[in-house]
């Protein structure tokens, strides 16, 4: 799905933030990505959906070398990768339901209103379909972002600190949704430094923990 070989990345040609990373993300896998603030977790995720390109090494996504992708190719890649951003980015002039349907709208796909209703119910936002994004609470925004990330039925879901601003109950609710998605065959990568969240997940799903330390990607031990 995503293959990295000796991949390095540095901003503006400076010192590499990430160096010599080798990784293979398989379909149906569940990964946590940890590391101190500023270690490069968000950068790693941005590399996965080709918002950034490696400065050296090789990376393929769904069999295609990302450095050779056209802009349309990048758009195509992003339709296969659902991303829950740390700062949940919505279009504030559209109601929640239309924000969720945005990936369908921009890809020209038909919007199945019943399926959209089911999706809203799945993230417990059935009563907020017509609400505007600024009216949502932090937890609601995160769930809405998750719903938007999965509406195109992507093969891979990337979540960047999805529980960063949520209380424990809300974090668990969001985690359950991600675990459900993984059980339906989606690969999931969650960037977090919440060890409790990782522990809770490992009780329910076979999750691997990756750690970024000293610019490199390491497989963390099982004793979390």
């Amino acid at each position, binding site marked *: 799905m995503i293959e990295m070989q000796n991949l390095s990345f540095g901003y503006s040609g400076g010192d590499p933030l990430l160096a010599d990373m080798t990784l293979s993300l398989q379909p149906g896998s569940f990964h946590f990505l940890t590391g101190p603030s500023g270690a490069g977790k968000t950068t790693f995720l941005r590399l996965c959906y080709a918002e950034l390109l490696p400065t050296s090494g090789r990376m393929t996504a769904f069999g295609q070398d990302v450095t050779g992708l056209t802009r*349309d190719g990048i758009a195509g890649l*992003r339709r296969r990768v659902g991303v829950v951003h740390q700062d949940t*980015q919505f279009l504030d002039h559209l109601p929640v339901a239309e924000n969720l349907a945005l990936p369908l709208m921009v890809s020209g796909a038909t919007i199945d209103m019943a399926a959209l209703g089911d999706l809203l119910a799945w993230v417990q936002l059935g009563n907020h379909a017509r609400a505007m994004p600024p009216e949502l609470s932090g937890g609601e925004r995160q769930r809405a972002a998750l719903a938007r990330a999965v509406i195109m039925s992507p093969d891979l879901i990337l979540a960047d600190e999805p529980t960063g601003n949520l209380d424990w109950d809300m974090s668990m609710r969001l985690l359950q949704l991600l675990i459900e998605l993984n059980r339906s065959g989606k690969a999931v990568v969650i960037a977090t430094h919440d060890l409790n969240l990782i522990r809770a997940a490992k009780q329910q799903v076979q999750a691997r923990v990756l750690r970024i330390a000293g610019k490199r990607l390491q497989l963390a031990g099982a004793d979390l």
Partner: protein
Amino acid sequence: MKKAGLKSLDFAALWRGLTRPDPAGTDRVVPPTGFTAQLTVFSAGAMAFLAVFALALALATGRLAERWSTELAQTVTVRVSAPADQLDEQTAAVMEALKTTPGIAEAKILPDDQVEKLLEPWFGPDVPVEALPVPRLIEVVEGDEGFDAEALRLRLQGEAPGAVLDDHTRWRQPLVSAANRLRVLGLFSLLLIAATAGAMITLAAKAALAANGQVIRVLRLIGARDITIATAFVRRFTRRAAMGAAGGTVLGLLAVWALPSVDQAGGFLTGLGFQGWGWLWPLLIPVAAAAIGFGATRWAALRMLREVR
């Protein structure tokens, strides 16, 4: 970082995106811009209104220059003023001189009924021309190669002292030149108006794109193609430019139509307007405005999208 090209944003692809219906409501991804939208429509309308007048001016001055140029070749006259007993003799001398002057294609004595018409504005209808000491008028048609007016004048002075060569070309030439310059000015004004409209729409489009930078980033992140994003903006600005220009054109046409008619105004104003098929020319203004809106927004969108991966 390597940057992928914006090849998908070629004119043909954008035009197809623009002409296709939008059942998914993709255009809604661009937030309504309210005041900016109204300003764009107003600017396009005002420019179109001015363009109608510039076009009318260009066409009118073109007609004027053509008319004056045509008359130029026909309005050389010789006026023979002499005592009644010498009039026929001097007229015959003038005709003989004209016939033998190189560069003169034709010379004919103006019949009494035409002289009567010339005098009608001053003396009213049914002027008894034969009872008045009216000079005899000879209309001279100049040949292609032209004639030496000064030499003819001297010759007439010797052979028919009562004859005066009235060479209208000397005062019409500057008028024709002025009319031609006015036509160029009218066409230049049209170009200037088109360029100004383009600049204003570009500015409005750039402002809208800059204000919606976050929207564009979000759309790219969820997998929107450049063509989808650009079409949403281009469609909006093209429509605004066309709508505003259509309104301005209609108002401009009404204003031109309401100008005093030929008979009432006279003089230069008689020509300021459209004639016959000329009324169809202004219909091109909204089409041109839409094309300008299309091109200007595409250019602005290209620049903006280049900054967003």
